[in-house]
């Protein structure tokens, strides 16, 4: 029984509604054999809370959402049937307060919780606390969460099952053995401190000459920075792409993939533009990487929606990076090309239903791109921006989707992360999707807070992006071409005229000059 979705775009609203063409009664009937939910709490905020609430409404499930005092005007509050205030020293700490949230579930008769992403979405203690209170967590089991949430543990788990991980060698004190291991990996090799992080003490080595000295220096530095001399070497992948695969698993042992997403355009290790399909994959490679992902998820008996992330080398090699055991920010592009409502599938899986789709039924149709609109100043090294949303006009049109929890009057500050909206487009192929994304960005208006909207347009129009020549260093590599274009004198004059005409004092002063108002039609300020 497939729930095919069609999209209905509502003008002047920042949401896209999903409507199921098949009958919900089918879903209700089959639910009798499994668990049913009386009330589902979305333990999140902003755009993802809105996104989940829309699906809960479509499924006919009573819903509730959390809010912090600062968010009393959030549109999520009116979309949910109920809203519960959470308290904390900071707004973020309120959303992380497990006893408080479990207490709210008990108090209000909530029997299922959707965690969204971030906050408690990958917190096994939260799942156990909900288990203890008899509340269903919409997501994987805590054991799988712990296993795949551990960077080293998950890597070992994957390697033991013969899925590809980047070749590496760990220094156990025997220098000769370590150096032999490094040579076996092949160059270039990345040498880093075992206890390290944040790029400190990392070094790329391109040849065997002088390797012994480099290792000795790396050990001294590791000792100095981290108090632990052990080092670690890993195949270094130049110009890699970030490719991830969406998977769904149910309690009945079924597991499918919903194809890949490429998320190579990143700044500060955070994704900015995502797309599917990846322009880098041949049909054979696509099948291979997607089947690896299903294999890994199956090995963990995965239940729910998850993402297996890979690092993809220019020569077509790919290696397991990590698994995210939650719905991801960029999930809409997968929904656009497959027509599957991933949140509805999460809910159904949590109820104990088998997956709605077989692998053969999940097709990748057309091309989808997501742009993350963030309150930041790209031309000032992506420094965060703050302010008040004074005007918000979502793009409206065929193949355009706008997921946002933002609203006019909203104060954008430091309390939460800087993403304020996601602009998603779908078209028949990549070129058309890029063009549609540019159109959507042109239509989109957000005034009052500086955003990366102009910058996203420059990324999309860049020749290398258009050619599909993307890698995780794209933003740094092309920084010189991605700056703002020179402001022409004509446009500058027009902007200044617009600014002057917005100014009450300036306009009042024009009272002294004879005729201006006659030419200012419909002046209403």
């Amino acid at each position, binding site marked *: 029984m497939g729930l095919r979705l069609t999209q209905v775009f509502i003008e002047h609203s920042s949401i896209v509604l999903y409507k199921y063409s098949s009958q919900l009664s089918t879903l209700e009937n089959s639910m009798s054999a499994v668990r049913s939910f009386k009330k589902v709490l979305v333990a999140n905020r902003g755009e993802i809370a809105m996104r989940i609430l829309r699906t809960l409404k479509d499924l006919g499930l009573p819903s509730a959402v959390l809010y912090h005092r600062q968010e009393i005007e959030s549109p999520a509050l009116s979309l949910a049937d109920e809203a519960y205030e959470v308290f904390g020293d900071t707004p973020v700490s309120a959303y992380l307060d497990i006893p408080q949230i479990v207490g709210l579930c008990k108090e209000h008769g909530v029997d299922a919780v959707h965690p969204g992403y971030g906050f408690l979405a990958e917190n096994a203690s939260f799942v156990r606390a909900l288990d203890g209170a008899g509340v269903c967590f919409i997501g994987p089991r805590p054991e799988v969460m712990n296993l795949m949430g551990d960077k080293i543990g998950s890597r070992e788990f994957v390697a033991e099952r013969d899925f590809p991980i980047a070749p590496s060698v760990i220094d156990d004190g025997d220098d000769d053995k370590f150096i032999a291991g490094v040579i076996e990996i092949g160059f270039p090799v990345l040498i880093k401190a075992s206890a390290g992080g944040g790029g400190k003490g990392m070094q790329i080595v391109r040849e065997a000459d002088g390797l012994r000295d480099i290792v000795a220096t790396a050990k001294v530095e590791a000792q100095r920075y981290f108090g632990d001399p052990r080092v670690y070497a890993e195949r270094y992948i130049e110009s890699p792409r970030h490719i991830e695969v969406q998977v769904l698993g149910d309690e009945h042992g079924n597991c499918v993939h919903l194809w890949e997403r490429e998320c190579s355009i990143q700044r500060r290790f955070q994704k900015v533009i995502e797309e599917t399909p990846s322009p880098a994959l041949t049909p054979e490679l696509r099948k291979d990487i997607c089947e690896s992902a299903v294999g890994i998820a199956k090995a963990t008996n995965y239940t729910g929606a998850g993402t297996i992330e890979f690092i993809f080398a220019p020569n077509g090699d790919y290696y397991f990076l990590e698994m995210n055991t939650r719905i991801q920010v960029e999930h809409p592009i997968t929904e656009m090309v497959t027509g599957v409502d991933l949140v509805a599938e999460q809910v159904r899986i949590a109820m104990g239903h088998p997956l709605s789709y077989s692998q053969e039924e999940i097709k990748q149709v057309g091309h989808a791109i997501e742009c993350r609109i963030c309150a930041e100043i790209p031309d000032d090294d992506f*420094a*965060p*921006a*703050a*302010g*008040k949303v*004074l*005007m918000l*006009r979502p793009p409206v049109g065929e193949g355009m989707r706008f997921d946002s929890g933002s609203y006019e009057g909203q104060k954008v*500050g*430091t309390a939460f*992360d*800087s993403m304020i909206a996601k602009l998603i487009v779908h078209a028949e192929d990549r070129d058309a999707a890029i063009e549609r994304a540019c159109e959507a*960005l*042109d239509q989109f*208006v957000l*005034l*009052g807070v*500086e*955003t990366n*909207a*102009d910058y996203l*347009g420059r990324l999309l129009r860049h020749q290398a992006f258009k050619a599909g020549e993307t890698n995780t260093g794209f933003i740094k590599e092309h920084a010189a071409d991605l700056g*703002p274009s020179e*402001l022409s004198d*004509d*446009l*500058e*004059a*027009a*902007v*200044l*005229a*617009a*600014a*002057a*005409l*917005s*100014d009450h*004092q*300036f306009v009042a*002063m*024009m009272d002294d*000059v*004879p*005729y*201006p108002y*006659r*030419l*200012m*039609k*419909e*002046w*209403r*300020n």
Partner: protein
Amino acid sequence: MRYTFKIGDELHKVAPRSLADELVLTIGDAECRVEFEHGKGGRCNVTLDGKSYDYWMARDGDDIYIKMSGSYFKVAAIDPCAAAAGASAGAGAISAPMPGVVVEMLVREGDSVVDGDKLLTIESMKLQSTIRAACDGVVGRIHVSVGSEFNKDDVLVEFENDD
């Protein structure tokens, strides 16, 4: 009287001037014939010497936000009276470039510092940045301490120039 508007770091002067039955603005050194239309839902149109521009505009105090020709512009209106009065008063204060929290104070009142010395570390949206002295001088009154939250443009540290 001329009004001053700031785009980026550049100041521009605009003055209204009328000729016969046209609205004419002096923008910088140029004179432009201007027509203006205020449409539905915040959409506006301005025509300069026959060239037409659609745009969206919103204003918060002296900050004017404009989207025109597919690009965003932030323009600051500079009040001619306030600008003249405030020129010397603000020189010795370091104000917050963005809202955030103080993570670390690296100086005390009365400390002598030189151009480029670190004064304090602030955090905004999980991003830490360092505020440095812009000239040689002595640290005056400190308005914040570790953990203090502040808004954009709040004074953090007063600063006495070494003149």
